[in-house]
C-alpha cells in the first residue's frame, strides 16, 4: 500500500480488510472512511447518468456509528480491544433486508415509505460489529429479476458501462461495491442474485449454504431458496463479512444449528494442491459467450498449474433445473407476497369505481403496487399451486430438486469443488431483454442449481471478455456446509489472476464522471 491510500480517493479503493488494518493502526479514522464513501456516493450515484446503486443514503447514522468507533478506539482499554475487526468499516445493505431507522422498499411501490419496526438478524449483527450502514441498495422489485431493471425506482447502471445492466436482482449492491461507493455490501441470492451481479460487475459474491446465514428480516421471495450473502471486491472480504453475519439464529427455523467454520482462515490459507476441481459438463459450452468460455478455460489452466486436478463431471438433471426453479420460486413467492394487501402497512389504493369492499381495495392495491414481473410470477405461482395442477407443477419441481441434489452428490463424490462460468454472458444492454422474460430467466441457468440443492457458491472475477471488454465471472460450488472450501480455492484463483493482471480487475474499470450532487442523494 502506498501513501495515497489514506487520501479519500485511495481510501475508497481499499479492500475491507486493508481498511480495517488502517483503522486499527490509527492511520485513518472510521469517520474519514465513512465520509469518503458518502462523498463517493454523492459524486457518482445520483443524476441522469449516475450508477443509481442506492435507494436511500443513511449518512447521519453511518457517521454517528463511525464516530462511536473512533471514540472507543481513542479511549483505548478493554472496550477498544473488544471492537470487532470490521468495526468502522462501512457497508451497504440490499433494500430487501429490513432496517430500523431507514426505509425498506424491496424496490417496490407497494412498500414506498415503509419503515420496519425491527432489524433483520444480519443487520443486528452489523450493528453489534459497529459497521456503519451507508444506505440501502437498489434491486429488482422483490428481488425478481436479473438486471435490476425491474426496480420501481429506476435501474442501476453497471460501473463498467453505464448503458449496461449490473445484473440482478442485487445490481445495486454489486454496482455500489464495483463503483467504490462501499467496500462491502449485503445481497440476497434466490437463483443467483448475488453471484450473477458479481460476475457482470467484476466483484466477488457468495451465496452461503442454505441456513448458514439467518433469513430473519430478509423479505422473502422464495423461502426454500433465499439466502443472504456477502458482496465484496475480494475473497477475503467475503469471508470476513460471512463470518459477521453467519451462524445460528433461533428466529430462523431453517438456520443451521452448528457454528460456522473459520472462513477467514480458509481464505487466508488458500491451497489447491491435490484438490479435485470438477468442470460441470452441462454448465459451459453451448449457449455461453465465447469470451466467457475463454476466461473460464484460462482459470482452469491457472488452477491446474497451481496443483489442482481438473476432472469433468456430469449433472444431467441440471437441464430441468431452470424449469423447476421457475415453478418453485413463483409458487413460494405468490404465497410470500400475499401479505402485501394494504391492511397493515405500505400502500393502499382505492378502486376507481364500483364497490369499495376490502377485497377490491386489496385487488386495487396489489394492481397498483406491484410491477409486471412481480405480477407475472405471482400469477405463475398461483397457477402452479392451484387445484389440479399442484402435482404436475409444484410437486414435479420438488422431485426435480431431489434429482439435482443427487447430481450434486455424485459430482462431489468425484470432485472436492465444482467450477463453471457464473453467467452465460457478460452484462447486456439496459432494455435489451426487458420484453422477453424467458431470455432474462436464462441468465440464471448456471447459478440456479446451487439454490435448488442448498449448496454454497462463490463468484469471483475471471477477467474481461475479449469481444466486449466486460467482466466475466467464475463460479465455484462446494458441498453443503463446506463453504470454507470456496474461500480456500477462491483465494488461490484470485491471487493467480491478480498476478496475471498486475492488480485487481476493478483497477481496469473506467473512471466514473461526477454525476450528481450530495443534495440529490440526500433527497433520496
Amino acid at each position, binding site marked *: 500500500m502506498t501513501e495515497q491510500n489514506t487520501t479519500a480517493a485511495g481510501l475508497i479503493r481499499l479492500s475491507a480488510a486493508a481498511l480495517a488494518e488502517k483503522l486499527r493502526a490509527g492511520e485513518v479514522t472510521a469517520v474519514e472512511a465513512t465520509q469518503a464513501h458518502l462523498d463517493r456516493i454523492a459524486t457518482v450515484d445520483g443524476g441522469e447518468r449516475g450508477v443509481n446503486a442506492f435507494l436511500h443514503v443513511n449518512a447521519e447514522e453511518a457517521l454517528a456509528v463511525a464516530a462511536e468507533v473512533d471514540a472507543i478506539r481513542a479511549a483505548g482499554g478493554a472496550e477498544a480491544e473488544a471492537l470487532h475487526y470490521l468495526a468502522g468499516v462501512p457497508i451497504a445493505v440490499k433494500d430487501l433486508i429490513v432496517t430500523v431507522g431507514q426505509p425498506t422498499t424491496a424496490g417496490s411501490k407497494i412498500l414506498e415509505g415503509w419503515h420496519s419496526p425491527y432489524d433483520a438478524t444480519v443487520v443486528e449483527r452489523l450493528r453489534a460489529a459497529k459497521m456503519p450502514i451507508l444506505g440501502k441498495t437498489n434491486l429488482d422489485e422483490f428481488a425478481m429479476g436479473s438486471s435490476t431493471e425491474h426496480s420501481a425506482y429506476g435501474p442501476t447502471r453497471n460501473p463498467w458501462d453505464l448503458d449496461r445492466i449490473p445484473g440482478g436482482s442485487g445490481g445495486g449492491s454489486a454496482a455500489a461495491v464495483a463503483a467504490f461507493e462501499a467496500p462491502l455490501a449485503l445481497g440476497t441470492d434466490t437463483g443467483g442474485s448475488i453471484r450473477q451481479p458479481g460476475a457482470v460487475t467484476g466483484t466477488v459474491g457468495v451465496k452461503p449454504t442454505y441456513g448458514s446465514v439467518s433469513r430473519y428480516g430478509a423479505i422473502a421471495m422464495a423461502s426454500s431458496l433465499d439466502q443472504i450473502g456477502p458482496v465484496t471486491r475480494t475473497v477475503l472480504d467475503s469471508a470476513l463479512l460471512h463470518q459477521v453475519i453467519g451462524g445460528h439464529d433461533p428466529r430462523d427455523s431453517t438456520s443451521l444449528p452448528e457454528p460456522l467454520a473459520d472462513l477467514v482462515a480458509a481464505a487466508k490459507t488458500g491451497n489447491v494442491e491435490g484438490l479435485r476441481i470438477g468442470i460441470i459438463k452441462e454448465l459451459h459450452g453451448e449457449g455461453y459467450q465465447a469470451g466467457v468460455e475463454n476466461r473460464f478455460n484460462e482459470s482452469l489452466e491457472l488452477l491446474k498449474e497451481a496443483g489442482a486436478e481438473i476432472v469433468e463431471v456430469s449433472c444431467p438433471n441440471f437441464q430441468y433445473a431452470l424449469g423447476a426453479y421457475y415453478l418453485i420460486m413463483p409458487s413460494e413467492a405468490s404465497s410470500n407476497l*400475499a401479505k402485501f394487501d394494504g391492511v397493515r402497512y405500505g400502500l393502499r389504493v382505492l378502486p376507481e369505481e364500483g364497490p369499495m369492499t376490502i377485497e377490491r381495495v386489496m385487488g386495487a392495491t396489489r394492481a397498483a403496487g406491484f410491477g409486471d414481473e412481480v405480477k407475472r410470477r405471482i400469477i405463475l405461482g398461483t397457477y402452479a399451486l392451484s387445484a389440479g395442477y399442484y402435482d404436475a407443477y409444484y410437486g414435479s419441481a420438488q422431485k426435480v430438486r431431489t434429482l439435482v441434489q443427487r447430481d450434486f452428490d455424485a459430482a462431489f463424490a468425484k470432485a472436492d469443488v465444482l467450477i463453471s462460468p457464473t453467467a452465460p454472458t457478460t452484462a447486456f444492454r439496459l432494455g435489451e431483454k426487458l420484453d422477453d422474460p424467458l431470455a432474462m430467466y436464462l441468465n440464471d441457468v448456471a447459478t440456479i442449481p446451487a439454490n435448488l440443492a442448498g449448496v454454497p457458491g462463490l463468484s469471483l472475477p475471471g477477467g474481461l471478455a475479449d469481444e466486449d471488454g466486460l467482466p466475466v465471472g467464475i463460479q465455484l460450488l462446494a458441498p453443503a456446509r463446506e463453504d470454507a472450501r470456496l474461500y480456500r480455492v477462491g483465494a488461490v484463483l484470485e491471487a493467480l489472476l491478480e498476478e496475471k493482471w498486475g492488480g485487481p480487475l476493478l483497477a481496469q474499470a473506467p473512471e466514473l464522471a461526477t454525476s450528481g450532487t450530495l443534495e440529490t442523494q440526500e433527497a433520496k
Partner: protein
Amino acid sequence: MSTDTILSFEEAMEKYDPVLGFEVHVELNTKTKMFSSAPNVFGDEPNTNVNEVDLGMPGVLPVVNKTAIESSIKIGLALNCKIAETCRFARKQYFYPDTPKNFQTSQYDEPIAYDGYLDVELEDGTVFRVEIERAHMEEDAGKLTHMGGATGRIQGADFSLVDYNRAGVPLVEIVTKPIEGAGSRAPELAKAYVAAVREIVKNLGVSDAKMERGNVRCDANVSLRPHGRERFGIRSETKNVNSLRAVEHAVRYEIQRHAAVLDSGEPVIQETRHWHEDTRTTTSGRAKSDADDYRYFPEPDLVPMVASREWVEELRATLPEPPAERRKRLKADWGYSDLEFRDVVNAGVLDEIEETIAAGASASVARKWWMGEIVGRAKAADVDPGQLGVQPATIVELAQMVEAGKINNKMAAQVLDGVLAGEGTPAEIVEKRGLAVVSDDGPLLEAIDAALAAQPDVADKIRGGKVQAIGAIVGGVMKATRGQADAGRVRELILEKLGVTAQ
C-alpha cells in the same frame, strides 16, 4: 332473517337418519403463540399482544412453540389417536383481513394425530363411541369488529376494525369421522361429545376450555338420509356454535331444516350456516364454490416434526387419568348410588368433593355439605359452586364440631355463612356468636318434662315400645331450646326418663 320451513323433530326422525360430524377447535393455553414469542393472553388492549411475526411484517419467520406440540400430542393421546412419526405444517391460502399473512399456517395432509376415538356417555349412561379422524395444529386469526351497521354484524357494516392479539394463538382442530347411528339422540350426542372434548382438554391442562371465551369452538356438520340408505346426504356446516346448549339446539334445528328441504323435493345445498342464539335458527352463509382453492403447500419456513416413540411415551406417562375412568373409580370408592353420583356430576362438584374427602371428611359428609348446603348457595349467588371459596378444611372442621356434639347441623350451616361472609374460621365464629349446643342437662330435663306433659299420648306410645314416635317429643324440646340442644342427647334423656332402652 330466517324464513326456512322446518319439520317437527319427531317427523324428521321418522323419515330420516341423521349423520353428524364435528370440527372442534381448541385454543391451547400456552404462554406464547404458535409461531411467535408474543403472549397468548385473552382480553388485553387491542394490538398489544403482538410483535412483527403476528402482524405478518415483511421479512418475519415462524418458529414452532414446543409446548404447543406437546399439548397437541397429549390431546391426540387422550383421544386414543395414533401420533404421526413425522408431520409438517402447510400454508392454507386465502385473503382475509384477520389473517395477517393472507395464509394460515396449518397442518394439512400430515396431521400430528389421527385415527382415534372417544367414548361419549349420554345422560342416561349409554356410551356412544365417536371415531376421531384427526387432530391437527393450526393458528388462530385476529378479531374483526364490524362497525357502522345496526347489528354489529358483517352485514350492513361500513367498515371493520382488526385486532391481531388473537392472531397466532395455537389451535388444535379435532375432526370426527362421520357419526352414524345416533338417531333421535343426535342432538344430545352432539352436546355430550363437545362436553367430553372440553372436559378432556381441561383435564389435560392444555386449554382453559372456556366456551364463552372461544377457547373451545364447534363447527357442526349435519346431513340426513332416508332410513336404510347407505350413501350420505349433502351436509351443511354450522359454524362457531359456542355453547353446549347451542350445539344441541343447532344440530336439532339443522335436522329439522334438512328434513323439510328433502321433503319438498329440493336438494340440500352444501353450505356454511351461521347459528343465531337469539332465534335458535341458522342462516345461510357462503356456499362452497370453486373459488375455494386454498393452494396448500408445505410451509417452507418450517421444518418437519419427528415425534420419536420415546418422546410420545414420555408424554403419555404425564397424562392425567381420563375423566370417564376417574368418575368410575370415584363412584366405586365413595359408594354413592347412581342417582347420587349423577347429581354430583351434574352439579359440577366432583373435584370439590374429592378434595374435601382428601382433607379428612367422609364421603357421605362431603356429599351432604356440597349438595345440601353449598350448591344451593352457589345457585343463589349465580356462580359455580367451586367459585364460592369454600375450603375443604372448613367443611372438615364443621363436620368434626357436629360430630363432637359442639354444634348441631343447623348451627353449622350458620357458621358456614359466617365463613363465607369472611368472619373468620368456624371455631372463631362459634366463639364469637356464642353458638354451643346446650349440654347442661338441667335446662334440658325441664324442657323434656314440658314436652312430655304437652303430648302425653306420645309419651305413652314410647313407653309402649313405639320408639320411633320419639321425634315429636325431640322436636318439641328443640323448639323450646331454639335449636341449641344436641338432638342426640335429648333423645337419650327422653328414653332414660321413660325407662325405655334404646334399640
